[in-house]
């Protein structure tokens, strides 16, 4: 379960202060898939960064189950992220100097987990034949499948996704949505996804959108 209590965040540009989030309260249940919907620059990424422990809120607290990540040190937050959170990016963000297999093994290595899971999950995303390829020879859809596999491989409790289909064509997007639906839902992961695309709405248990620096539920 994720719980945001009175979370505010802004940034300053010169002398002007822009508020992005103010007094956000939010509960996300275990196993729930929540979509943050909105235009670019609306604060979705800010929220994801806060959830990932990359940024700290100006005010308020964020709880992952019992852990108040806003009270952790930078290092503790990183270690929390390493173990408990999986990331899916818009631009896939595979490491270009590592092969597909090595990209998958990286989270396993960071968490001191056995490597054998890499092949298994590659099978699941249907890329066993690309195991020794470097990312730059993969298509966008293939890259994103690897990225999804990477986000899940170390069995995190929470998946954070930022426009996972934002850089893909329609057909590929559909495949990715299916994949997420299949794997994430199946494994009962909690997932928070930011998007400005309506195509993925079908995945959501809940859709939130930002209004007056607060998230409200959309129907």
């Amino acid at each position, binding site marked *: 379960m994720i719980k945001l209590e009175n979370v505010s965040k802004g940034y300053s540009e010169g002398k002007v202060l822009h508020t992005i989030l103010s007094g956000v309260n939010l509960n996300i249940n275990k196993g729930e898939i929540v979509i943050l919907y909105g235009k670019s620059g609306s604060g979705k990424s800010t929220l994801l*960064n806060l959830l990932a422990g990359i940024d700290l809120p100006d005010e308020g607290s964020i709880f992952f189950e019992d852990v108040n990540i806003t009270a952790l040190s930078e290092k503790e937050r990183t270690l929390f*992220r*390493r173990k408990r959170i999986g990331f899916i*990016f818009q631009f896939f963000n595979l490491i*270009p100097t590592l092969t597909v297999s090595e990209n998958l093994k990286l989270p396993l290595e960071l968490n001191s987990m056995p490597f054998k899971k890499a092949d298994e999950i590659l099978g699941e995303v249907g890329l066993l034949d690309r195991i020794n390829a470097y990312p730059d020879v993969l298509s966008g859809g293939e890259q994103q499948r690897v990225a999804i596999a990477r986000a899940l491989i170390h069995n995190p409790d929470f998946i954070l996704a930022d426009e996972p289909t934002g850089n893909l064509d329609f057909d590929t997007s559909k495949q990715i949505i299916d994949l997420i639906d299949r794997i994430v839902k199946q494994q009962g992961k909690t997932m928070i996804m930011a998007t400005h695309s309506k195509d993925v709405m079908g995945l959501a248990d809940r859709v939130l959108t930002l209004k007056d620096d607060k998230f409200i539920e959309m129907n």
Partner: protein
Amino acid sequence: MKIIHRSSLRYIFKHKLQFGLSILGIAIGVAIIAAIDIANISTSKAFNLSLNSVTGKATHRIISTSGSIPDSVYSFLRIQKGLKDIAPVVEDNITIGDSTKKSFVLLGVDVFAEKPFRDYTSSSGSDNKNGFKEFLTAKNTIVLSAENAKLLKKSIGDTINASIRGIKKKVVLSGIINNYGNPSQLENLIISDIATAQELTGKRGTIDVIDIIINENLKEDYVKNILPAGLELQRSSSRSDIAEQMLSAFNVNLNALSMLALIVGVFLIYNTMTFSVVQRKKILGIYRSLGVTENEIYRLIISEVLLIGFIGTVLGFLLAILISKNLLVLISRTINDLYFIVSVTEIEVTPFIVLKTLIVGIAASLLSALKPAREASQSKPGISIVRSNQESKILGNIYKLSVYGIISGLLGAAILMLPSKNVWLSYVGVLPVIIGFALMSPLVIKVSDKILTPLSGKLFGIAGRISSRSIIQNISRTNTAIFSLSIAVAATVGVGTMISSFRETVVTWLENGLKADIYVSAPSLISNSNDPIIPYYIRDSIINMKEVRNINYYSEFKLFQDGKLINILASGFTDPSSKDFRLQGNDDEKVISKFQNGEVLVTEPYAYKNNIKAGNVIQLKTDEGYKDFKVAGIYYDYSSDKGFVSIEYSVFKKYWKSNGLSGIAVYLKNDKDAETVRNKISSFAGSDVELIIRSNKFLRESSIQIFDRTFIVAKVLQLLSVVVAFIGILSSLMSLQLERNKEMGILRAVGFLPSQLFKISTLQSILMGLISGLLSLPLGALLAYILVFIINKRSFGWTMQLSLEPRVLVEAMVLAIVAAVLAGIYPGYEISKISPSAALREE
């Protein structure tokens, strides 16, 4: 290997050229430092080895303050005082050979006293049945090591041409030492019976040294008490101590100069690492979002640098071994010119040098990586950072950086102005000055941009504008490149100016000092020092020549006093108005008359190093014990950084024994021809006496030649640091080119020709060179000032006139621009080859 390390390695391999250049840069920097160390240590090892072969197992030596000990003192100590472990030694330099001359130490020993001291002198396993008999009883017989006999192609019974103390001699090889444990120990030794040595050197009735073994049975104090007046007991090691003292300033400066290339190399690594971090910001960000901690990123970058640094250091060390042989020749020649005779053939690589090189190389690499590593560790997870953040960060901080720069510069100035005589400290003070300039350089680039961009735009259109702008747009990279080059160029200006100032000063000094028409001196193995071996009759004959107006004459003489060496110059003149001292102050006549009345003069280096002012009293150990001498004045002298105490000749004769003169300066009557007088002098000296008789012009020229020779090493080192800077600017231009692929691709796409891209790139190199050049001029002038007035003064004690030549400044500008343009050719070529489509493809 961890996966992230694998990723790093692949990154490095992908950018082989950049990292390769970094490795090369650090390798050259390290190579120079290690080569200088190897050369220095080899020289001192060779010197100590030759000392040891002379000293043997003697713990101490008895010497005379005036250099020679009467024979009777030895018999007195052995018979009356019953000292057993003592051995008499006559020692001198001897030159062997007909065409190619090689200098040796002639060691005259008494074999019957040798056993406790030098085992080789009694163990001579010679093939010559009568060897011992001839060695002991026949005239001019000598013994060589088998290696030297082979080298000189001589066998037993052969006659060898030699020259000792300016006299030609023939010596006969009567024995060969075979299979002595360490042949290099005998490398520069020629051994003879003590009687033979006395005859060959003309040291009648005196020996030079009594070796002695001090132990629990024979206490130091006891020996000191029984020594006759004028004799001193000193530790055997004090000779090498004195040699080390003499060389210390020379070595410090050599070491400091060798750091120069490494400092430039550090900027190079810094540049490469900063670039690689910036380029990998995104990857690092992904790492961070996958949960790699800041520390792990930091360590990752450090480990990359350790790898590069290690490879560079190892390569550098191998390179050092290659170049140290050549460097050794240069350095040992300078030492022979200025300090003492040492013959070095073997390079010596000690574990200490290996360790020091490793530490220096790796520490320098680490130092240059600290900032990039910190930046890397602060990579934001998740968000893809664009580089311009970095650039705008620098641009935003330009004024702050400049203030830090000024503070750093002031700190350096403060360190330099500390009232200390420590040479290292002055080099320590130079560092903040350089760093201060480095911090100021973004401001200079910004100002240059303001001026150059419109100018370049006017001259070269849009291409000119792009070239100039991109320098400031990529300031995080261009800054280091520009600065590395400007340090190297500034060093060129500084060292060049220092050398030319020094040269100018010496030339003026020689012109003022060398006023006599003819100079007679004894042949000498050390260029700036002459043994007092010209017989007095030659002086007297010269005075009596009708062509001669008056003469100055002098004896050089080394006074060993309380473990220290003082150079004494006994100086006499027939007419005080022809004195050739250039005195400080305006009281020449008064000072000279004091000098003639028994006071002494000291040279500027002597005064500086011993804190002596006119009117002070110094104590000198005469043959009658310590005597006080008042210092009448200080005079300029650039022949020895050790300095001289000058004493009027008759005063000198009163307190010390002397065998002859070191030199005679002859002033001719107005209409007399120098050549005729020259021939006359050499004819009455006789053909066996090797006198060097030179005109003042010739003497001046040969002095300047030696001067120039001494600075070859400095020039070589300076050149090498320019090479490293060149590599630096090449590497950073290549980095820039890599990053600007996309920008250039766009330009190609909108219709720029490859030749135009090449032009942009080249123009940019020229501009960077220009900025470097401009930056290097004030820094160079400052370095010159520091070198001339602070470092030189502290090292050698000389006052020099700063002569900042416009030529040096122009050369510096040309050097900077040429280096930059040369370095820009290859990246420019690469840029011009960019295909628009490939460059525009999304990563």
